[in-house]
């Protein structure tokens, strides 16, 4: 698990908060405007920072050093509490006053996402990112600065929140910005889809067709169950209409289903519902519960030991996969999932929150297993967790 934040010592006045960290060779290539670059220098290298200043670089980063060198004429970012957090290629936000350093884009991470807003029009019982009603449009402004600094060879970029459609016209603007700066990067946008029930809203995101996948949660095949899980009346109808509006405009759609006590009763029906009514979806993702945010508060409503729902999950997932809809299982470790479902299991947990249980020590399936969320504590620990011996795994 590699955190996204750390503290740093900043010596000198930074001209901007958002910086692309590059080693000297890559910085000098000129692919990124020098004013936006912090040059990452290893301890051993001896560079004339006066020349770097003349070349208009914004800052120099010496992660291991405790202070600037006497002849440093550029602002220096040093003394990182955790030097592993920042590496060349990353885009960071540095707060001059607090010294807080956040990684907004991490080169080489297994997933990179843009956080669009904390606002949401749903209140899902298991929400791992509880929404707040605050004006955070500053995030969008920051993202518009961030997008051009992201590596062009990034295969996929996520949009998360909160609910992106609450940004109105700013959502299509963000999509267009990505399309222009990152033409080879596929977008993966999480949304509850409710606002797409309005055809005008569905029209507004036309730039995303062929370029983005909309990942939309649906928790049942009937309104009563779905609306209860998302704690919003009318949500099911709106989401289904939104899905159809997007689909008929040529957008790619992924359906997400989170597995817990409230959704299990209708999981098989849900699978059949998708197959019969939404065969156009490009992907269905069954997701194990992330014990964060509201899920922690609602544990008693939600918790089912994955070992107990494993067989039903395998059946629902294969029901779809066998009928030609690509299906995946996320966030369920292999030891608690029936072996028949292993081909559908993906390694999905983001690097920065991915941990393993002490029982995983020596497990031969570890390279293929998603592991656990960092928030996984004893109340969320399946009784089925165990390590596999090599011969068991080889079957």
């Amino acid at each position, binding site marked *: 698990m590699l955190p996204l934040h750390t503290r740093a010592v900043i010596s000198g006045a930074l001209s901007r908060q958002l910086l692309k960290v590059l080693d*000297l*060779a890559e910085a*000098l*290539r*000129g*692919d*990124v*405007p*020098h*004013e936006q670059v912090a040059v990452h220098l290893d301890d051993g*290298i*001896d*560079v*004339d920072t006066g*020349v770097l200043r*003349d*070349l*208009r670089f914004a800052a120099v980063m010496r992660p291991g050093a405790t202070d600037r060198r006497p002849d440093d004429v550029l602002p220096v970012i040093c003394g990182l509490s955790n030097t592993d957090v920042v590496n060349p290629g990353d885009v960071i936000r540095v707060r001059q006053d607090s010294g807080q350093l956040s990684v907004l884009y991490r080169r080489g991470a297994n997933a990179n996402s843009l956080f669009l807003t904390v606002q949401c029009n749903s209140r899902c019982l298991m929400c791992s990112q509880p929404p707040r009603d605050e004006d955070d449009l500053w995030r969008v402004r920051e993202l518009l600065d961030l997008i*051009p*600094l992201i590596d*062009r060879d990034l295969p996929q970029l996520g949009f998360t929140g909160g609910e992106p459609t609450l940004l109105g016209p700013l959502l299509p603007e963000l999509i267009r910005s990505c399309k*222009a*700066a990152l033409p080879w990067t596929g977008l993966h946008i999480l949304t509850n889809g409710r606002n797409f029930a309005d055809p005008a809203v569905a029209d507004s995101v036309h730039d995303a067709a062929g370029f983005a996948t909309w990942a939309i949660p649906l928790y049942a095949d009937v309104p009563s169950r779905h609306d209860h899980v998302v704690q919003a009346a009318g949500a099911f109808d709106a989401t289904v209409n939104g899905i159809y509006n997007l689909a008929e405009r040529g957008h790619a759609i992924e359906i997400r289903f989170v597995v817990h006590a409230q959704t299990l009763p209708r999981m098989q029906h849900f699978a059949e519902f998708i197959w019969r009514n939404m065969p156009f979806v490009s992907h269905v993702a069954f997701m194990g519960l992330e014990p964060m945010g509201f899920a922690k508060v609602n544990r008693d409503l939600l918790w089912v030991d994955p070992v107990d729902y494993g067989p039903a999950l395998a059946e629902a997932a294969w029901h779809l996969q066998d009928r030609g809809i690509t299906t995946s299982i996320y966030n369920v470790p292999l030891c608690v999932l029936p072996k028949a479902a292993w081909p559908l299991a993906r390694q999905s947990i983001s690097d920065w929150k991915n941990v393993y249980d002490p029982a995983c020590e020596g497990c031969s399936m570890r390279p293929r297993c998603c592991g656990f969320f960092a928030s996984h504590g004893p109340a969320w620990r399946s009784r089925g967790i165990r390590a596999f011996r090599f011969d068991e795994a080889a079957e």
Partner: protein
Amino acid sequence: MKKNWTDYLKQVLGWTAPTAATLSSIWSPVQAGPLPVLLPEAHPSNTRLQPLTFVMPNRMEGPEIYIGHRSHSSHRSHSSHRSHYSSAGGYTSPSYSAPVYSPPPPPPPAPVYNAPSMVTTPSWSSPSKTTTAPYQPPAPASGSASSGTTAAPRASQQDAIAMTMRVQVELMRLGYYKGKIDGKMGPGTKEALRAFQRAEGLVVTGMMDNATLARLGFVGK
């Protein structure tokens, strides 16, 4: 009149055995001659020992803008030594104007994807480690005069310093340079360049000529 039955039979057989009758009109692999296959231009002595490989992105287009004083014309005397690889590279028709550096434009606002510059030709041959003269592009065609005067095009001071730094970093990475990265062509840098050129079989100039830059991996923008 008696029918010519033999001819008639041949005709009839022709109807019923179309393949036989039309054999000559069907192309079959048997009839194919050796196809004109475009083979990579291989240097015999090298390929016996190693397969064809690309050493590095290998062209620095345009005039020698990182070399100090000499005017462009004095390089023409080397043109007779141009390696045969570069001729396969097809130098350009006048419609391609070599990118010439005039005083620097502001840094590009959007990140530019720098594909290895194989812009002009998909040449199969790579200038491998031969001891030929640094390759010289022909004088850029009409449209490319930078300052409009007869002076040879040169990189701006900023660009030259940046390129020198890049060269210093790369030479340090390769182990030839151990001094300060300062963007200046001091004696240490020059000596490191000479050592690199010697080791790579390039003309030992101690300067950042295009062939040396290309060998270091800096292809022309």
